[in-house]
């Protein structure tokens, strides 16, 4: 390696970036399929069945269709903002995957501030939605964007407060360190309330039902995505699934013990299996929630955050701090 013109660390990052992109696309395919299949079964339908065995290739075909579609730009739209909005949404979705430890060895880079890095990058999505809503020059889009911003700002708070409880215990922002600290005892058993608050907050952060107010098809047609078509739409779509993946990965890392599970051969790499199983379990729960509940109203959403989640997470933080001091 020494005679390579690229330093090995850079090569490693490059390789990780490519893997991250593969994970993004693969996850969008798997999630799109799971979502439709599970939605179907919850509703006593078979879901996609036509393309491939049990409709396995449906999402690939849909992807090809979306790529081939014309990008319609509304005449009144802000052309620049309208164009960059999907990219602003999608691009940051790849970055957090570089720091997520899938297994002890499968990690792009272990930052000391990995957790903060992820939260910072994910927050860019709000900006993308706001750009999309404003750039489309459509009142429905703008309403969706406004809702999204209010919602994300509100739910960031309980999320960060519960994170602090975990950080108080682990004393590190490094994701690897947090997972390593759960050897033997997952944090969900230590602080189940924090897990619940965090999970609810992530559902809201990723704009999933019952908190899917920025999209709210029965009220806002498609919210901020109303005017988008073709690849513009599918980038939002993939970004949404990637953010869900990241959010569930964070939950797994913080509360469900990351890669920990029954021992496997070559555990340094293969224990990623446990990680993915846990993440997809949470994702399926999210799908399950989406296809069961009605949507909450906008003011109720904020009420729920300020009146329930924030006080609970504050008390939780206090209790954690006191217990640790003793």
């Amino acid at each position: 390696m020494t005679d390579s013109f690229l330093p090995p660390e850079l090569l490693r990052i490059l390789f990780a970036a490519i893997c991250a992109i593969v994970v993004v696309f693969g996850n969008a395919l798997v999630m799109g399929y799971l979502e439709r299949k599970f939605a179907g079964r919850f509703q006593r339908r078979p879901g996609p069945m036509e393309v491939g065995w049990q409709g396995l290739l449906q999402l690939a075909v849909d992807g090809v269709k979306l790529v081939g579609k014309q990008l319609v730009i509304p005449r009144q739209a802000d052309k620049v903002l309208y164009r960059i909005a999907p990219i602003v949404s999608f691009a940051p979705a790849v970055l957090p995957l570089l720091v997520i430890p899938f297994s002890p060895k499968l990690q792009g880079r272990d930052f000391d501030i990995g957790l903060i890095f992820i939260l910072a990058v994910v927050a860019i999505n709000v900006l993308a939605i706001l750009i999309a809503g404003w750039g489309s020059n459509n009142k429905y889009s703008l309403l969706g964007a406004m809702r999204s911003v209010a919602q994300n700002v509100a739910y960031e708070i309980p999320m960060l407060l519960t994170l602090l409880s975990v950080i108080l215990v682990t004393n590190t922002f490094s994701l690897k360190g947090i997972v390593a600290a759960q050897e033997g005892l997952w944090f969900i058993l230590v602080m189940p309330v924090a897990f619940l608050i965090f999970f609810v907050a992530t559902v809201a952060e990723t704009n999933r039902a019952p908190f899917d107010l920025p999209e709210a098809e029965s009220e806002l047609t498609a919210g901020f995505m109303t005017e988008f078509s073709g690849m513009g739409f599918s980038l939002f779509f993939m970004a949404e699934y990637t953010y869900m993946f990241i959010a569930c990965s964070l939950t797994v890392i913080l509360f469900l013990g990351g890669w920990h599970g029954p021992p496997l051969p070559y555990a340094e790499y293969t224990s990623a299996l446990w990680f993915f199983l846990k993440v997809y379990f949470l994702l399926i729960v999210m799908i399950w929630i989406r296809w069961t509940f009605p949507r909450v109203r906008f003011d109720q959403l904020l009420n729920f955050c300020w009146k329930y989640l924030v006080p609970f997470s504050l008390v939780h933080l206090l209790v954690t701090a006191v217990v640790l001091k003793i």
Partner: protein
Amino acid sequence: MKDYFAQIFTGGKSLLVGMMITLREFFRPVVTVQYPRERLPISPNYRGHTILVRDEEKPEKHRCISCKMCERECPSGCIGLQGEKREGVKGLVLVRYRLDFTKCSLCGTCVEVCPTDALDYSNEYRHVGFRREDFHYDLLAMVEEQK
């Protein structure tokens, strides 16, 4: 304060109950069918477009006597039929019976007014076409094809 916690408890419980219901439905069998590949049996009483029925005694013939009752009674005016006088045949001979299915509202008046019960409903429900003219059915040709 008590209400506050009671609401969290009852609300959370109602959400869990809802999720259990969808989970139960998840494991129950699918109720839909993959339509063009599988089809549900259609009731024999289904009323599709009208057809001319063949006479039971003389299966080569239909029973229409070209009296034009159906044409007159049709509220949508979608029936056009023509009979003509022929040598050696008693009564009129039907030469054309056209049903404009784009206008038909399937009320069944024509079947009810027919004095010879020459009309009946078909069981066809899958009408597909690219042009309006595809739905201008020639009932006479249909009944002759069946022979």
